[in-house]
């Protein structure tokens, strides 16, 4: 257990360390005391109001639509079941206790002393999940994980490990939501992704928080030869403060990473979201695409590609739409460390073009309908390789968000 003690020592030193980006959060103002939650036998039997909240974050509790489910309420893992051979879903605390191999993946891509949030996720870990597709397993239906905050003022500290073993295919939808009565909360989430040789992982995160919730995910992934990592992030509901900058290392020949983010900033909200990819092996490719809309919030959309070897290709695209007040700051960065890298970016921030609205009005829509149609189009990004059920969840999140924006 020496390694764990070392982690703790490092974490303790970083307890007060501010993060590189985002507002500083007063951790002491949130409670880490985990209330008791009973294990859930059948997610289909959850109270309807909870199932509805979860559904808004893409968590579907009906039978037959998901290959497995992990559900955590506040700090407690209450349900963890895989329905498909080759798919493992285990609460991380159980995994760390019982499975030696898990330690090979725990805090290996992220440093525990990165900032006070990583420190907290180690020193005060509630739970989280390990989801793994075994070698060659094709998990065609998505697996789902839900992080649910039920206690007002709670600080939910989780750590997740996602592994797509060689030549496997794994699709995960992870939804984060608060109970209807929760106004305030903090979510600190560590995620480490491992996409091995020839594997394909799509990870779609839908956040459905409340107006006074702060969110600090810390994520990193590694993709081996011929692997594909699709990382989709959707945050369209009001949230107070969100900052994340996931990093992916393309380590094997021909590895591919694609980030897609759809962000909506509501009044009073601060969103600082990016994606960073190190292209460190031959023929690797990366794409970081974001669409940001604000109707009063402040959004920073970052993207960073680092080309370390000749022949790699990458593209960044940040598009922002200011509907009403608020601001959008697009920060695309490219670093080529050798000649022969091919990386580009495009960024555009503006308002909805009046001629587009008028064009649609001349087809019979009123001004609000025309605006909504253009916004929906702006947010509809084709994500190659994403299975239909996930595409539907994203479309639904976009559809739901429209009601708030207009």
């Amino acid at each position, binding site marked *: 257990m020496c390694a764990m003690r070392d982690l703790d020592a490092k974490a303790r030193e970083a307890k007060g360390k501010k993060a590189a980006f985002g507002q500083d959060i007063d951790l002491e103002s949130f409670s880490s005391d985990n209330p008791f939650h009973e294990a859930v036998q059948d997610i289909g039997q959850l109270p309807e109001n909870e199932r509805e909240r979860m559904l808004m974050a893409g968590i579907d509790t009906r039978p037959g639509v998901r290959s497995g489910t992990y559900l955590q309420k506040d700090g407690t893992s209450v349900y963890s079941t895989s329905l498909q051979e080759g798919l493992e879903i285990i609460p991380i605390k159980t995994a760390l206790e019982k499975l030696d191999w898990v330690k090979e993946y725990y805090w290996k891509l992220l440093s525990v002393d990165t900032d006070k949030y990583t420190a907290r996720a180690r020193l005060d870990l509630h739970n989280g999940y390990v989801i793994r597709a075994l070698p060659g397993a094709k998990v065609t239906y998505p697996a789902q994980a839900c992080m649910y905050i039920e206690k007002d003022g709670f600080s939910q500290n989780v750590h997740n490990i996602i592994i797509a073993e060689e030549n496997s295919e794994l699709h995960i939808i992870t939804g984060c939501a608060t109970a209807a009565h929760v106004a305030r909360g903090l979510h600190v989430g560590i995620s480490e992704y491992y996409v091995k040789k020839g594997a394909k992982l799509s990870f779609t995160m839908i956040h459905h928080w409340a107006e006074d919730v702060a969110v600090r995910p810390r994520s990193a992934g590694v993709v081996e030869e011929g692997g594909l990592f699709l990382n989709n992030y959707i945050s369209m509901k009001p949230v107070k403060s969100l900052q994340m900058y996931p990093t992916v290392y393309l380590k094997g020949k021909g590895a591919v990473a694609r980030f897609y983010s759809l962000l909506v900033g509501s009044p009073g909200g601060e969103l600082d979201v990016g994606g960073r990819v190190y292209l460190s092996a031959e023929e690797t490719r990366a794409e970081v695409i974001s669409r940001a809309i604000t109707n009063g919030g402040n959004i920073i959309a970052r993207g960073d590609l680092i080309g370390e070897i000749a022949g790699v290709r990458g593209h960044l695209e940040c598009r922002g739409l200011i509907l009403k007040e608020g601001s959008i700051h697009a920060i695309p960065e490219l670093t080529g460390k050798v000649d022969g890298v091919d990386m580009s970016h495009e960024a555009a921030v503006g308002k909805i*073009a009046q*001629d*587009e609205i*008028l*064009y*649609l*009005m*001349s*087809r*019979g*829509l*009123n*001004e609000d309908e*025309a605006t909504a*149609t*253009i916004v*929906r*189009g*702006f*947010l*509809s*990004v084709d994500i190659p390789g994403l299975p239909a059920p996930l595409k539907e969840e994203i479309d639904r999140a976009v559809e739901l968000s429209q009601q708030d924006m207009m």
Partner: protein
Amino acid sequence: MLIVEDLQVKLGDKEILSHIDLEIRPGETHILFGPNGSGKTSLLMTIMGYPQYKVTAGKIFFKDEDITHMTINERARLGIGMSYQRPPSIHGLKTKQIVKICSGNEINVNTLAESLNFSDFLDRDINVGFSGGEIKRSELMQLIAQNPDLLLFDEPESGVDLENIALIGNTISRLLERDHRCAPGKSVKETRKERTKMGLIITHTGFILDYVTADKGQVLYEGILACKSNPIEIFKQIKEIGYEECVRCAT
């Protein structure tokens, strides 16, 4: 019926149309000639209701309603539709979606697209990277779906390749109920009488006249309408003596 009465229009601070009178009865199609910058598109945009075109005097009536100050979508619902020369691109809005918007979901988009040789474009974002001819076909598809009573065409033949010009011309002719086929048991005259669709077509090249018969032609020159006459005659004159001389001679 469309009645434009002594219309005066400003774009920004500049007066671009003055004393325009125009009357299009049900079943009639008019051709609007005129050099670049003469105000042809502005007249169409004003009839459609684009707010940047400020009506400073005069009135526009359509179907007995004063539409001078109606919004664009109110006019669209009343039955005015337009085929644009350079419509905006809208990212993320598929061509098939906009066609559905036009029809209020009441049309088989696939069949319609086949008839215009446009099936491959249904899943493309509207107007994004479309060629001139593709834009025209997309605009026509939207107009067919919308099924308006007054159809405004802004240079429907510009940028269209020879292969598609007949397709476009014949489609416009059919839309304006001018395809000369007699209804069963009726004479040509009776069929003509039953026409209700009104058309106003801007043309630069006159190619459209090979496909669409029109009742009247007019020349818009420096913001003033002149030479109401047979469209083919006008076109001939313009070709022979030019716009300026044509207008001078008529006034």
